[in-house]
């Protein structure tokens, strides 16, 4: 039995106000309740970091989907770790298309990372967009050509900042019929 819940699992220490924010964001967007697991430590279970402390995102996702059993519809992992994938040198998040798990890194979403003064609003807006985008992938949505749509693929934070936090008129009905 799976419950209609999206379970959030923090990987390492994550500020609880950030987790509260994203729970609310997810519930507002998908109309699905969220739950939270205690912090999870991965270090011993996944390949060691590469490229100066970046972790393999696909391995983490695989580990999560095989080792963590929860009765949830979806599992969202959030981490401060910097990520890479077997094919990409950096990424903000990764999801299993039509699958159960999604992973999002906060590492490159803050203004401070780019040597700019901190801005919580900008940070949370990026965080919202990346999380909703990745979870939508698990519900089968693919990338959209509409630059304003949240499903537009972003390869840097400027792309993320430019798109809207919403689904366009062609993605929205697909989402509604898939959830």
């Amino acid at each position, binding site marked *: 039995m799976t419950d209609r819940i999206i379970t959030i699992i923090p990987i390492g220490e994550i500020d609880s106000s950030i987790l509260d924010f994203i729970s609310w964001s997810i519930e507002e967007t998908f109309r699905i309740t969220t739950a939270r697991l205690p912090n999870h430590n991965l270090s011993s279970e996944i390949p060691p970091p590469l*490229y100066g402390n970046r972790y*393999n995102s*696909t*391995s983490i996702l*695989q580990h999560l989907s095989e080792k963590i059993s929860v009765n949830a519809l979806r599992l969202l992992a959030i981490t401060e770790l910097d990520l*890479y*994938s*077997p*094919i*990409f*040198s950096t*990424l903000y998040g*990764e*999801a*299993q*298309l039509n699958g159960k798990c999604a992973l999002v890194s906060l590492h490159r979403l803050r203004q401070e990372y780019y040597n700019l003064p901190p801005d919580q609003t900008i940070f949370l807006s990026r965080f919202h967009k990346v999380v909703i985008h990745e979870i939508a*992938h698990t519900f089968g949505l*693919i*990338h959209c050509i509409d630059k304003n749509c949240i499903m537009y*693929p972003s*390869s840097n934070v400027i792309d993320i900042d430019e798109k*809207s936090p*919403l689904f*366009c*008129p062609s993605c929205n009905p697909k989402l509604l019929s898939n959830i």
Partner: protein
Amino acid sequence: MKHDINILIVDDELIVRKSMSNWLKEDGYLVKTCEDGYAALEQIKSNIDLAIVDIKMPGMDGIELLKESKKIDPDLPVIIMTAYASIDTAVQAMKEGAFDYIVKPFNPENVSQVIERALKFKMLEKENLLLRKELEKKYGFDEIIGKSKKMEEIFQLINTVSESDATIMIRGKSGTGKELIARAIHANSKRRYGPLIAISCGSLPETLLESELFGYEKGAFTGAHYSRKGRLEMADGGTLFLDEIGEISKKTQVDLLRVLQEMVIYRLGSTKPIKIDARIISATNLNLEEAIKDGRFREDLYYRLNVVTINIPPLNERREDIPLLANYFFQKFTVANTKEIVGIAGEAMKALIDYDWPGNVRELENAIERAVVVSKKKEIILDDLPETITIKAVKTESEPRSLNEFEKNRILQVLNENDWNISKSAKILKIDRGTLYNKLKKYRIER
């Protein structure tokens, strides 16, 4: 469209196959994966548009696979994946005819570009194929069927106007297939890869129609919880089909005229101009010239919309097309129903040809669909057709119609002409809805 593009990934590492295929699927491609060159060659024999191949694999390596693949499908673009260490071999791969090479780990933007270029190369062939198919259909645009002189003139006109961006107005009675004509024009125009956005102006109240057409910004009115594109904006790069244009209010007429003059829109609640590039096709079953005289329709808008007119004749003015159409629909519905009926009997066909078809092609389509469903014989016979059609057939041989019969036929005719809209029909018949319902019951009239 990406959803019919097949990409093959060949890599001995499971995690690379997984990660790569997930990423390409997120972009909307269909993905197949193989762990070695031998399996890959089997796949290449089927329908593959692009192969992305790791250069270092045990057994058959990437370069060998590339050479072998050229023997099976010389046009298949192959992209080689390599690590920094093996760039020399990547260069060798290019000499062997690889389309390009990408270095792991990738920069996503970069890889997307390489893939798109490779596919464009492949796509040119597919496009040629499409063009050929369209030429074959030249004298039968999908469901628009006819060999009468009037229809051949229309096909000619569609061909001519499709190529230009001229604004077109399609005139014709209800059920003559105005939307099909609009679709044919779009499908044959250079905008065919853009969207075709249709909106039925008659079915929406003024305020809703305006927000549908122009879109709105968050907070433009109560209930506008987020911004939304309008149909005009959505049709950018394509065609906008405005059906029942004669029904729009005077205010919307003014707004629409301004858009057509400037090709710029403002979403409701916004002062930001948005440029649009859309071809406008409109349609109506009303007499707009009369509406202009009565002051219900703006003359300037009429001239904007009516650069080219396509008049679709009612079915009873091209009776020679009825057998062709009837047989076409017959085939369409027997396939859908998997019934073993072989054709339409002579007397039934004669009734079809003689009938007046106030509901035009749509009424004919409905009649044939119903006949296929109720038919119990090898052929469709007179009894399988709706009574309205057969009454007329009998009439030609028997006594003049009674007053009741006349009334029944008149009601049916009005209903058909107005898409079975009861209120509208009652108004035209100058009776109230209740009376109309009673008469439907009395004459056992059903849709």
